[in-house]
């Protein structure tokens, strides 16, 4: 039993990272009908930005709660700016162009970001300081939970719940939902679509930045090309949950993480990826709009 619960904890941790990244995919898709393939590379980029921010402001040795918060806030701000820039340069000129052009532009933008990271920080694996979070470990009935895991689970739940209420309770959230349903009608209602798209990219990129920093603090080693793997998994999670659907992305991420951990734990590593994509195909065959795609009529 504790083995099962331990696998749950492992799965939920990686799952909430997938969910954070998946939100970036799903929000952009909901509003623009565009798969932002550069998003995964933006996640990798944010891990490197985080490392540099930390080294610049605090040097190598200082660790305190304030230091960690500053790193998260600065990194999220920088990555959000890059995300907005990405939309301006690579997507806005193509908004009326055929969808295929925008997708190709997204793939190209991803390569530009990935290679820029390689040129700026070098091709070597970079390593996060081990003492950003305290090394506290709790052992509850044979299950081991680390401080970093609690942080990941806690902060991502807060962010996801916050986002849900932001979309559903605030004026900007309502505007975002309106743009998702019909851009032209929203424009006629006096909503500034460009501003809404900008907000979407700010939110999506900052959530990606948080995920990137968590990947760095949890796994320690970051490489310039890791964005592809996290991006692909999060993309699968977004599709599973129903792309364009925010609770769907959260659910898809958590399910994918759990599913992966269980397959690895009870069958074998060799099969984990195979089963992931079998599950994806099964969901697409039986519920083409994803798990939450139909029950929630409103997209975004």
């Amino acid at each position: 039993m504790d083995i099962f619960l331990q696998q749950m904890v492992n799965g939920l941790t990686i799952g909430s990272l997938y969910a954070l990244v998946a939100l970036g995919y799903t929000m952009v898709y909901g509003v623009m009908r565009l798969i932002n393939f550069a998003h995964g590379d933006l996640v990798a980029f944010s891990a490197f930005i985080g490392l540099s921010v930390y080294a610049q402001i605090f040097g190598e040795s200082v660790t305190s709660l304030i230091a960690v918060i500053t790193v998260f806030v600065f990194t999220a701000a920088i990555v959000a700016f890059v995300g907005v820039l990405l939309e301006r340069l690579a997507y806005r000129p193509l908004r009326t162009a055929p969808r295929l052009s925008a997708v190709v532009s997204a793939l190209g933008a991803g390569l530009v970001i990935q290679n820029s990271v390689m040129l700026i920080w070098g091709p070597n694996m970079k390593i996060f300081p081990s003492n950003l979070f305290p090394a506290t470990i709790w052992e509850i009935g044979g299950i081991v939970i680390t401080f970093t895991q609690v942080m990941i689970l806690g902060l991502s739940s807060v962010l996801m719940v916050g986002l849900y209420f932001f979309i559903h309770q605030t004026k900007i959230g309502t505007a975002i939902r309106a743009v998702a349903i019909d851009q032209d009608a929203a424009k006629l209602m006096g909503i500034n679509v460009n501003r809404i798209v900008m907000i979407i990219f700010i939110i999506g990129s900052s959530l990606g930045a948080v995920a990137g920093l968590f990947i760095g603090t949890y796994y320690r080693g970051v490489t310039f090309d890791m964005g592809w793997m996290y991006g692909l998994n999060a993309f699968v999670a977004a599709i599973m949950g129903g792309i364009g659907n925010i609770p769907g992305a959260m659910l898809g991420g958590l399910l994918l993480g759990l599913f992966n951990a269980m397959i690895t734990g009870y069958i074998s590593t060799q099969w984990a990826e195979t089963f992931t994509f079998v599950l994806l195909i099964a969901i697409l065959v039986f519920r083409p709009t994803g798990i939450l795609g139909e029950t929630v009529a409103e997209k975004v």
Partner: protein
Amino acid sequence: MKKMFPKLTASLAVCSVLVSTSIAADVIKIGVQAPITGQYANEGQSIDNGVKLIVDQYNAKGGVLGKKIEVVTCDDQGTAQQAAICAKKLVNEGVKAVIGSYTSGATEAAQTTYFRAGVLQTSDGTSDSLIAHKYWTFFRNSFPNSAEADYTAKYFVDGKQYKKIVILSDYSSYSTDLADATSKALKAKNANIIYEGKIKSGTQNFTATLTKIKSMDPDVIYFSGYYTDGGLLRAQQIQLGIKADFVGGDSNDNPDYMKLAGDSAKGTLLINVPTPDILPYDIAKTFLVDYKAKFNAMPASIWSLMNVDGLRAILHTMEQTKSEDTKVIAESLHKLKDFPGITGPVTFREDGERIGGGYMTYEVQADKSYKIVYQ
């Protein structure tokens, strides 16, 4: 139409011969095929640096056979696909010999191309399969996995007397080969292997596999893969509170292992041939001083030095035989005996295998230094 092709190919062949001889006239080209980028970048760059240092030293003395040596580097990113492209590129460049690559997988993918073109190749790849092709062009400058496996089995059974052994590997040619060889050697000594598993290199999250291992309560986890995964495995093992010893195969011996594992690195047991800084040979000491002076860093690991020894053996044999003909050089290399190398005497067998060994086990201390615990 049918008649045209033989003529065309014949004239092309003449062209390429002319081109290659005109190039060969003024310089001797040496290729480096190594992972300059990608996850094994620091090993690849170190090989490239080592080769360039030796070549500079030769050129300062007037080169070899009265000609300057030129280094052509191709980045194989540690992948088989890129390695195959590199092999073609280096052959087209007209190199006489290729140093590399670092991984067995990338080495094996390029082997056949070099063999067909008659280009010498020397690599630190330890997979036993590298020698199995019996290519006359291939020379291993390190020692095979089977030698390390026998040592590991002896250490586990006679030294540590482990009762419950877990073996982990990744999917690479080298790691699978080493894990299989170790498992075979352990079984020959009637050791109790309770689990043999695989992790996927680069996935970073190994907690699911480790949790499964935790339930088996092993004495030791042996990992035959590379440092990029080994460091994370060790860190996550300690996080999950698995008490077993962690023993890493030779490719975990890298400074990045220590950084990745952080404080968890303490207590790790690493099995490898001697590290660069404890090599007893004068020639090694001089090389390390020169290397440090030129690149302001130490070589990434012993593997760069093994490759450098491969290059030195080839250049030495070129001078001895006074020939640029790779066939003549290879014939002489196969008989090379006790050539003073940085990593010890270099002796090649008829099939291109380097004879020797001398493994040691190091225990990583709290300050990340090594202590020899078993020889």
